[in-house]
């Protein structure tokens, strides 16, 4: 008849060969993490869009970079892990930063060396239904940059340093990117040359008058992996303004 001490001794003396390889564990864990990051980003884009709508409705926002917070979470897949920590969006999403009638956000350097270039025709008809163009995101760093963005950046049309028109409703799909140093990815986009309004509805608004305008674009970038000292925030990617003449 075994007693408790015997049982404890037996269990304490158990031994088994350890053939664990940390490299294998890390490789398998990375494969498992990526789809979650994509999903987290998609949820984040949706959540940020919600914040954006709220921000537009609350036209009393004094600063386009006013901070708010949102934390996304996905359903738990394993009962053994009680909590998740996804990238936390501690500012407005890129599609909500530039607000109609406000001063556009000043470009800031990307943590990852990403830069946007806005490429629209130099001249476009003021009465066009839409002006088509493209935004190019270039990796200006010396490192490969992997992650995801919205399927198209948000373009703002600026006159007298105020936003007068914005590109269409946010697309909630995301796009994976994997850019070598110097490599670029192009996004097709367009905007209606119509005066925007603070409530976000440009339907009945007047067309933009003929004249000179500037264009700028913003997009959020979520890295595939975070370094040890990197903040858990999507990186806001921007770039220099370009010129456009409506006539």
């Amino acid at each position, binding site marked *: 008849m*075994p007693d408790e001490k015997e*049982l404890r001794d*037996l269990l*304490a003396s158990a*031994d088994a060969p350890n053939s664990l390889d940390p490299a294998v564990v890390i490789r398998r*864990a990375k494969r498992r993490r990526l789809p979650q990051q994509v999903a987290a980003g998609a949820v984040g884009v949706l959540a940020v869009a919600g914040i954006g709508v709220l921000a537009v409705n609350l036209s009393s926002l004094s600063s386009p970079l006013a901070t708010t917070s949102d934390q996304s979470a996905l359903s738990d897949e394993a009962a*053994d892990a009680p909590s998740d920590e996804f990238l936390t969006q501690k500012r407005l999403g890129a599609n909500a930063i530039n607000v109609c009638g406000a001063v556009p956000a000043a470009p800031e*350097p990307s943590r990852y060396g990403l830069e946007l270039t806005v490429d629209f025709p130099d001249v476009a008809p003021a009465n066009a239904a839409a002006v088509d163009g493209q935004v190019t995101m270039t990796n200006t760093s010396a490192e490969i940059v992997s992650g995801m963005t919205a399927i198209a950046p948000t373009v703002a049309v600026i006159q007298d340093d105020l936003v007068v028109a914005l590109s269409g409703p946010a697309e909630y799909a995301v796009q994976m990117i994997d850019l070598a140093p110097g490599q670029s990815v192009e996004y097709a986009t367009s905007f209606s040359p119509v005066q925007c309004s603070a409530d976000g509805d440009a339907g009945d608004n007047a067309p933009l008058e003929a004249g000179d305008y500037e264009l700028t674009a913003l997009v959020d970038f979520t890295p595939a992996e975070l*370094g*040890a000292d990197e903040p858990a925030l999507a990186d806001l990617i921007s770039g220099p303004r370009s010129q456009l003449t409506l006539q």
Partner: protein
Amino acid sequence: MAKPRQSPEWESVVTRLVTERGDALTRYAYLICGSRDDASDLVQDALVKTFGRLRNGHTISSAEAYVRRAILNTYLDSGRRTSRWRKIAHLEATPEIDDAPDGEVQSRVDLQGELMKLRPRERACVVLRYYEDLKVDDIAQWLSISPGAVKRYLSDALARLAVSLTDEEADRA
């Protein structure tokens, strides 16, 4: 400009955990699943499950707690819990110990063999109680069962161990 990329924090926690606590985790997995061959695989699966999520800020000890729990749940939730152990338990006995004249050693082998024939949840309760030194309420929380069920599993397991050993000793006599 982009900064030089460092390994994410979770990767260094994995490396340290495997290096510093790999033996202990494998031993724990062996006690849970009852197979030396499967123990490392079980730990690896648990590590992947734990770190294959978007989580940072773990210390080695907090990560180990998650992994231990994942080992237990992975085993209990998977097909591994089929009675494989009970089928092969007799093959795991070390031959030279079978021949040992020392009564204490013989008793230990008997106990180990019988322990490995327990049902998975019975063995889990025994391991958590007598190896991890958890209280009944804590075991109940780990296994998401009632404290009463834990007591029942422990009681049945100890009775089974005692009965089996008693029967075998009677047979040997």
